[in-house]
Each structure stands twice: as structure tokens, then as C-alpha cells.
């Protein structure tokens, strides 16, 4: 074997790729092909290291080419999975990259948990655990566009909350709000939307519910109020209901429920005044 061939082989054996193979050395054609092959592999690996996953490796297959392509394939799949996660699919899991898989999956699980917590915080009232105004409005809009009619709406307002806050403190006021929330939740179905939409105001959306069924729900609220433990704070609610037969009438149903709730409140005040007047000397 001539010296130049030996030198090229020694270079290859020490991990270097010779720049060129003299055409007239022994095994020049074979060594030339080997150098081209290794150079292409090197280029491909470099590009892969730089994060470019789009390159095609046009070399005859074999264990090295196959393994590099498998790595490229894994990275491409990981990229696709990451895009899906970015689009909100937190069910993606990596199971082919050892420790990285564990770290990545933990990250996705924590992101998912954080998202769930954020969604809960942004759609729920922290005091009562009921839905908040944001969620109520979104559901109101969604149901207005839906087909689940008739849709009934119940409005409820706590009587005497300001008085409880002023006379017994805000802890007592908060307790009253929680009790009102529990009573309303207990009186309707689990898939009805019960929301606290203001300080002392609640609203319930009852999909696929006519006015008679809504009135039955209100009766259950009255029953719960009547059956309260007489020892503690007593919840008193003013309540009204309205029913929409289609998306167009949702706002009108909301207004009906609100108006009736205020009528109920006015009636309660009138009755209280009458009782007070009768009792006064």
C-alpha cells in the first residue's frame, strides 16, 4: 500500500476527514467515495446540531445513516408535539428521549395544571366557588347561539347584606353570601350554570327549561331558605325568573328575571314595613 493511502487511512482512523484523495493513490476511488460519504454525514450532523430538521440525507442507507435519520425523525416529531402543546393539546407525551422525556412530560403536566388553575381562577368566584360574571357572560352568549331552548334565567339578590356587613362585620357578610350560594346550587341541577355576578347578586342559567320548571326550582330555593338552621345567620333572597324561547329573546329573559327580582325585593320591603308598622305602638 502506498504511503499516501496509509496516511489517508491514518487520518480517517484518528477521526479526521481528509480534504482530498489523490487520484493516483491506491484505492483512490474507494477512499474518495468514503470521504464523500463521511463529509455528507458530517454536514448533515452539523445542520442537525444547528436545529435545521428539514435537510434530507441523500446517502445509501446503513446503520449510521439510519440512526441519524431516526434522530432527525424523533426531533421532527418532538417539534410537532410541541406545536400541538402550544395549540392547547396538553395530552402530548414524549416517550423516546430518556431523561429528556421525563423532564418534558413533567413540564407539560405542570403547564396543564397551571392552565387548569388559571382557567378556574378566571371563571370562578373565589369566595363561593360559583362561576363568575366572565363565565356567565360567555355561557349566556354561547347558549344564545345554541339550540337548547327554552332557556330560563333566575336572578337572585341577598336581602340585608349591607346591614349584616355593617352590623356584624364582613366575615358575617361573607358567610351570608356563601350560604346563599349553597342554597342556589342545591336547588338547581348540577349542569345548570350558577354564577355570582355581583357583590350580592346571583344568576342561574337553566338550559332546556321552561318557565314552569324554573318556578319549581325557585320553590326549591324557598324551601331551602325555610329549612335553614335557625340558630345562625338567616339568608333572605329576592328572586325573579324569565324564559327565552330563542336566541333573540335571551336579553329580554334576563331583563324579565331582573325586573321580577326587584319586584320581589320591593314586595319584601313593603311586607317588612307593614309588619313594623303593625308592631309599633
Amino acid at each position, binding site marked *: 500500500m502506498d504511503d499516501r493511502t496509509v496516511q489517508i487511512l491514518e487520518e480517517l482512523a484518528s477521526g479526521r476527514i481528509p480534504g482530498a484523495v489523490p487520484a493516483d493513490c491506491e484505492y483512490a476511488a474507494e477512499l474518495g467515495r468514503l470521504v464523500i460519504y463521511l463529509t455528507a454525514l458530517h454536514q448533515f450532523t452539523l445542520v442537525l446540531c444547528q436545529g435545521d430538521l428539514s435537510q434530507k440525507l441523500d446517502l445509501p442507507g446503513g446503520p449510521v445513516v439510519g440512526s441519524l435519520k431516526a434522530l432527525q425523525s424523533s426531533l421532527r416529531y418532538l*417539534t410537532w408535539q410541541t406545536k400541538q402543546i402550544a395549540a392547547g393539546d396538553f395530552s402530548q407525551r414524549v416517550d423516546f428521549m430518556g431523561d429528556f422525556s421525563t423532564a418534558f412530560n413533567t413540564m407539560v403536566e405542570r403547564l396543564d395544571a397551571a392552565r387548569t388553575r388559571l382557567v378556574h381562577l378566571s371563571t370562578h368566584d373565589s369566595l363561593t366557588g360559583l362561576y363568575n360574571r366572565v363565565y356567565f357572560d360567555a355561557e349566556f352568549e354561547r347558549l344564545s347561539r345554541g339550540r337548547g331552548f327554552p332557556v330560563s334565567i333566575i336572578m337572585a339578590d341577598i336581602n340585608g347584606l349591607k346591614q349584616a356587613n355593617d352590623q356584624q362585620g364582613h366575615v358575617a357578610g361573607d358567610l351570608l353570601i356563601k350560604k346563599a350560594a349553597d342554597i342556589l346550587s342545591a336547588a338547581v341541577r348540577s349542569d345548570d350554570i350558577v354564577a355570582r355576578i355581583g357583590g350580592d347578586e346571583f344568576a342561574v342559567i337553566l338550559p332546556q327549561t321552561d318557565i314552569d320548571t324554573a318556578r319549581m326550582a325557585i320553590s326549591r330555593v324557598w324551601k331551602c331558605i325555610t329549612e335553614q338552621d335557625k340558630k345562625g345567620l338567616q339568608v333572605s333572597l329576592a328572586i325573579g325568573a324569565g324564559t327565552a324561547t330563542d336566541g333573540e329573546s335571551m336579553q329580554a329573559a334576563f331583563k324579565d328575571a331582573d325586573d321580577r327580582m326587584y319586584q320581589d325585593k320591593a314586595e319584601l320591603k313593603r311586607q317588612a314595613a307593614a309588619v313594623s308598622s303593625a308592631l309599633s305602638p
Partner: protein
Amino acid sequence: MEKTRKYCFSWEHLGDMKLGRPNLGPHARLEVYRLMQFCFRDVIEQQYGTEAADSIFYNAGYLAGEEFYKNVIGETTDLNEFVRKLQSALRELGIGILRVEVADLEAGRLVVTVSEDLDCSGLPESSYEICTYDEGFISALLKSFTGKKFVVKEVDCWCTGDRTCRFEALASG
């Protein structure tokens, strides 16, 4: 025509495993499957030629893909759900490990890989891809899911020296 056929496929041809194989169960060695498949290939190629053999395997894969979608995957319109169900079914049944590299349904282009493929993983290297059955299978799955026709071509295969089979699918027409 249908009435005169002897082998019109029905999912019921897969049989009741519990009833039929109370002791051996539903599993058989992969070599048995490959023995049958590659003997089929051999005889079909000898009798009808290479092109016809490939076409027959593509079409058989297509039929299997249609039935697989109907009976195993089920109707879905969400891409991620479709991929998830498919990945899970292929892994559970030992068909292969499916991964998606590109999924651009609007442009009608998908690139998927199948590792540890039922048909080819571990086979001796040759100068051609052999997963024509898989091509038809994937084509039918995509047609069933999207409603569009897809031409599927295997671009990398264990048999050409790669360690994972790669399929490019392009919507046609």
C-alpha cells in the same frame, strides 16, 4: 357481483378469539405473519408481476385501513384525537410506533414515521422500500379521516437501511 365472490372482506372474518382460541389467545409470533405475507408476495409476483404485486398489496392495505378506521379508530374530526387514537391502537396491537413529523391538512401534506414496523423492521437490507401494504393502509386512514384522497409513498424504510419507515402523504385531486 358481490354474491358470486368467495372472499368479500368483513370484519367478522377476524373471528371470535375468545371462543376460538381459549388456550392460545389472540397472539401469534410475528414470524408467522411475515411468513404468510412474504409468501403471498412471492407467489403473486411470480404469477402477476412486480407492479401488480405492489398494487395488490397497496389495495389490500387500503381495504384494511378503511376497515381499521371504521372498527378500531371510529369517527372523529379532531386531528390530535385521530393521531392519539391511531398511535394508541397501532402500539397496542403491535403494528408499530407512529409519529407525526408534518401534518398540514390545509396544504394536504403529511409526513409520518412508523418505527418497529410490523412488516419490515429487522429485515435484510435491499435497494427498495417494501411497505406497500402500509402505504395503502395509511392512505385509507387519511381518506376516512379527512374525506380527501391521499397518495402515500414510503420514502425511507428499514429495508433501505433506515431505522424507521417514513411515509409522505399528499392529497390528490
